[in-house]
């Protein structure tokens, strides 16, 4: 019995001991947890956590203090943070309790310190009260009672932005977690991303531009975005003028972007009953300014990154271009154009060829309108800031005039920063990225100056020598001038360059009909270069350019040799035999991207606008050779010499080249017997009014190849490229002479490619020739020739077939013109 009791006692003791140890461990654990909780609380207070999921979407309280205040509220001991009804009431209750405690403390203090007067005690209690809590209490009460006015509009802006951000994140989460397939989700994201990047300059990680921005694309984007949020109707966007620059968008059929760029009278321009609020109408011109200036500084990842520049910037943009179109200059240009016109259309006895009456009328009207518009622009620009800022014509309007391009926008900005008082006040707000661009530009200028070398010509050296070297050193220029041979075939290239240089010199009046020539004098050696410029309509001009890029003199196609040459650096060389100096070194002056573009014909718009608006609308330019993002600009500024009568023609040893362009006549120029000995000349497969049937191609091609069968992207490229070559209907380029695609599209493609373009071909056909060769090269296809039983593949069919093939090999980028 005793041993049994001992055992029981022993067990009991062991149990007690174990329990004691357990209790100790438990106490230790509790102590650790308490410390941990205390540490976590302290950490939370020090480093606030982000909002929880359930807390999002709840209106956030914004105090007049900094954002840090929000975190303090949320992670204070009372756990004041986000607000919904329940939480907010909790916050209020806590604050009431706190105030009660403070009051009690104050009262207690007043009792024990009765030696102090009542006023002092009240003051002390007031000071004791937590000012922050008081402020918060007032705000929260006001929030619920609607009595508290917001501290400032800035707070409301922050609140709106936060709401927007919340919805963006919410929608993003919905997409990620929603029931759509992965492919659809990816498609949505790709669509959004593509739209956000549209028109925005993109750079790689090194800061190198990999895709240039486009002002006109950004304009289109703004219009579409306004339609997306129903500020205007999408139908209205469609009816606006076409933006024929940069994109093949079918959203617009007329120059919407250019109309937008004028800014004024937008409501009257939008057809179909679209209503625009007055606020929106006033805002659009300013937004266009922001798009035009700021987007030049956009970085990868989208976003405008625009510099905040107000309407004062317009004034300085105008100041920069004041004097560019004076009456004197316009008159000289007009006279030169009229002279060229007369030479082209008048016979030797001064009569107009009646068979070309319609062409004559079009050409003359084009000249009249061109210089009328130039006078309008001159008036606007010369009148300075008052005109432009008063009319709220945006930066884009100046760009539409050709006075500003994507390339020289920074120049305007730079000048604006120097003198604009308003910008000086906001200088601290300027996006630092803008400064980086300006800095990069100044470095570029320095580099360009170092690289700027002039044509070094031996004394008495000719312009033609420079032309030859320019053609031989610039493949793009050579192709534009009609070279379609192998670039690496130096002999063929040199032969072509020689012929072309001579043709250009005679065509522009540098070489006269009896052998006289303008040559660079001693003052020009090392300082001035005659640069070949090729305009989008194919016209060639020669610009005598100095080392700083300033154009001293311009020679146009159709100019006659004049005795009254620029005696500062030229002289009249009269020697029928040109000395050939193979040792002459010639260095080519690089293309200067910072050139202005001449305003060309614009169509008149019949809109009920003010006189100034009407003037501006007249300048809506659908014909202007606008600078595409990836093209060099062409410039026309000039010093026009008065016309002189030439001496009687003399026999020369050089072949006479007619400067006028001849219409490409397939019957005469295609299938010339001398080009292909023994082969019969070919004619177009069929009358253009007769459609090609499948039987025509049976056995030759597996199906009909027409542009209608192309999918969206290649079809757009098809149309874009042809519009680039032949011009869009309505453009001056399209109306010029009768060179249209429809006259040649049904000709045999293989024959067309075999022919070498000669000097009589119109520029558009030469360009088409190069284009079809390019398609042949990139696609690897060859046009199918005529057989005994089937017609040859036409030019258009081959183009379509080649584009289809190129799409399959993902090389469409290589054929975009």
């Amino acid at each position: 019995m005793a041993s049994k009791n001992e055992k029981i006692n022993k067990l009991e003791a062991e149990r007690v001991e174990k329990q004691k140890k357990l209790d100790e461990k438990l106490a230790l654990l509790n102590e650790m947890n308490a410390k941990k909780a205390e540490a976590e609380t302290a950490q939370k207070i020090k480093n606030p956590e982000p909002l929880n999921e359930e807390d999002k979407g709840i209106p956030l309280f914004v105090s007049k203090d900094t954002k840090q205040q929000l975190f303090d509220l949320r992670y204070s001991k009372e756990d004041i943070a986000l607000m919904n009804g329940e939480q907010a009431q909790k916050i209020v209750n806590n604050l009431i309790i706190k105030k009660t405690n403070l009051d009690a403390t104050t009262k207690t203090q007043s009792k024990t310190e009765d030696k102090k007067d009542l006023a002092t005690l009240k003051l002390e209690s007031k000071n004791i009260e937590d000012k922050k809590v008081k402020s918060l209490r007032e705000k929260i009460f006001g929030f619920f009672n609607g009595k508290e006015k917001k501290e400032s509009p800035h707070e409301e802006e922050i609140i709106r932005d936060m709401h927007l951000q919340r919805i963006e994140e919410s929608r993003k989460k919905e997409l990620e977690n929603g029931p759509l397939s992965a492919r659809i989700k990816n498609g949505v994201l790709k669509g959004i991303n593509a739209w956000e990047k549209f028109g925005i300059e993109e750079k790689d990680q090194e800061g190198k531009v990999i895709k240039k921005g486009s002002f006109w694309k950004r304009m289109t984007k703004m219009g579409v975005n306004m339609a997306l949020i129903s500020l205007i109707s999408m139908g209205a966007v469609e009816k606006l003028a076409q933006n024929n620059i940069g994109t093949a968008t079918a959203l617009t059929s007329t120059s919407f972007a250019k109309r937008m760029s004028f800014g004024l009278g937008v409501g009257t321009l939008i057809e179909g009953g679209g209503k625009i609020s007055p606020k929106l109408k006033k805002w659009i011109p300013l937004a266009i300014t922001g798009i035009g200036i700021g987007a030049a500084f956009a970085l990868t990842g989208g976003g405008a990154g625009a510099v905040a520049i107000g309407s004062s910037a317009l004034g300085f943009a105008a100041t920069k271009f004041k004097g560019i179109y004076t009456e004197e200059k316009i008159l000289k240009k007009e006279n030169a154009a009229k002279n060229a016109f007369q030479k082209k259309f008048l016979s030797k006895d001064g009569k107009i060829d009646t068979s070309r009456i319609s062409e004559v009328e079009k050409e003359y009207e084009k000249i009249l309108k061109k210089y009328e518009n130039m006078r309008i622009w001159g008036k606007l620009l010369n009148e300075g800031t008052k005109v432009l800022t008063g009319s709220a014509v945006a930066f884009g309007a100046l760009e539409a005039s050709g006075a500003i391009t994507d390339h020289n926008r920074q120049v305007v900005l730079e000048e604006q920063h120097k003198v604009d008082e308003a910008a000086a006040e906001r200088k601290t707000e300027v996006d630092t990225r803008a400064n980086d661009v300006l800095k990069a530009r100044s470095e570029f200028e320095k580099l360009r100056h170092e690289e700027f070398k002039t044509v070094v010509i031996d004394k008495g050296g000719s312009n033609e020598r420079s032309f030859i070297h320019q053609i031989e050193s610039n493949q793009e220029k050579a192709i534009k001038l009609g070279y379609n041979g192998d670039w690496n075939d130096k002999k063929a290239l040199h032969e072509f360059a020689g012929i072309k240089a001579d043709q250009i010199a005679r065509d522009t009046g540098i070489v006269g009909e009896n052998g006289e020539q303008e040559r660079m004098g001693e003052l020009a050696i090392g300082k001035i270069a005659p640069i070949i410029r090729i305009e989008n309509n194919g016209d060639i001009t020669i610009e005598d350019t100095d080392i700083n890029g300033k154009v001293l003199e311009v020679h146009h196609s159709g100019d006659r040799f004049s005795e009254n040459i620029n005696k500062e650096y030229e002289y009249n060389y009269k020697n029928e035999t040109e000395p050939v100096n193979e040792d002459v070194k010639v260095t080519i002056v690089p293309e200067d991207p910072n050139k202005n573009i001449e305003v060309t014909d614009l169509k008149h718009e019949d809109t009920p606008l003010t006189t100034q608006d009407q003037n501006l609308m007249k300048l809506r330019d659908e014909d202007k050779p606008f600078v595409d993002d990836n093209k060099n600009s062409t410039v026309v500024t000039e010093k026009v010499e008065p016309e002189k009568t030439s001496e009687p023609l003399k026999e020369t040893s050089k072949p006479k080249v007619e400067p006028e362009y001849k219409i490409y006549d397939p019957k005469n120029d295609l299938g010339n017997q001398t080009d292909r000995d023994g082969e019969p000349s070919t004619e177009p497969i069929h009358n253009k009014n007769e459609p090609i049937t499948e039987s025509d191609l049976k056995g030759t091609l597996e199906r009909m190849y027409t542009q209608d069968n192309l999918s969206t992207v290649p079809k757009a490229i098809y149309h874009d490229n042809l519009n680039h070559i032949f011009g869009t209907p309505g453009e001056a380029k399209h109306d010029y002479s009768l060179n249209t695609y429809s006259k040649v599209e049904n000709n045999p493609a293989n024959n067309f490619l075999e022919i070498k373009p000669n000097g009589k071909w119109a520029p558009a056909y030469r360009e088409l020739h190069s284009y079809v060769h390019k398609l042949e090269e990139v696609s690897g296809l060859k046009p199918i020739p005529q057989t005994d039983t089937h017609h040859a593949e036409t030019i258009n069919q081959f183009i379509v077939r080649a584009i289809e093939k190129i799409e399959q090999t993902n090389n469409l980028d290589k054929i975009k013109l």
Partner: protein
Amino acid sequence: MDKIKKDLFDLFQIDKLPIEKGIETLDRLASLVFQAVLVRTLPLLSEEELTEYEKITDSGEADLLFKFLREKFPEFETIIQEEAENLRAELAGEFDTTGI
């Protein structure tokens, strides 16, 4: 008291914002509507149509997306209006709650 229905331009008082902020806000709102439109429309495309859509997104000519969608969905503009209204109503409601 009847409240005047405000459009998104007025809700965000875009005309009172700095220009770049206004443009950015416009872009963000438009992206939200466009996203909603795509969520509604893309699932209705056939396999081939979806492939064509994807090619357009890769082409760099994003404006062609709208042309493409307009061709596939005659009610495209109605969809845009509906989604814009949904966004407007959602934001207006939240602004009211916040008291702005």
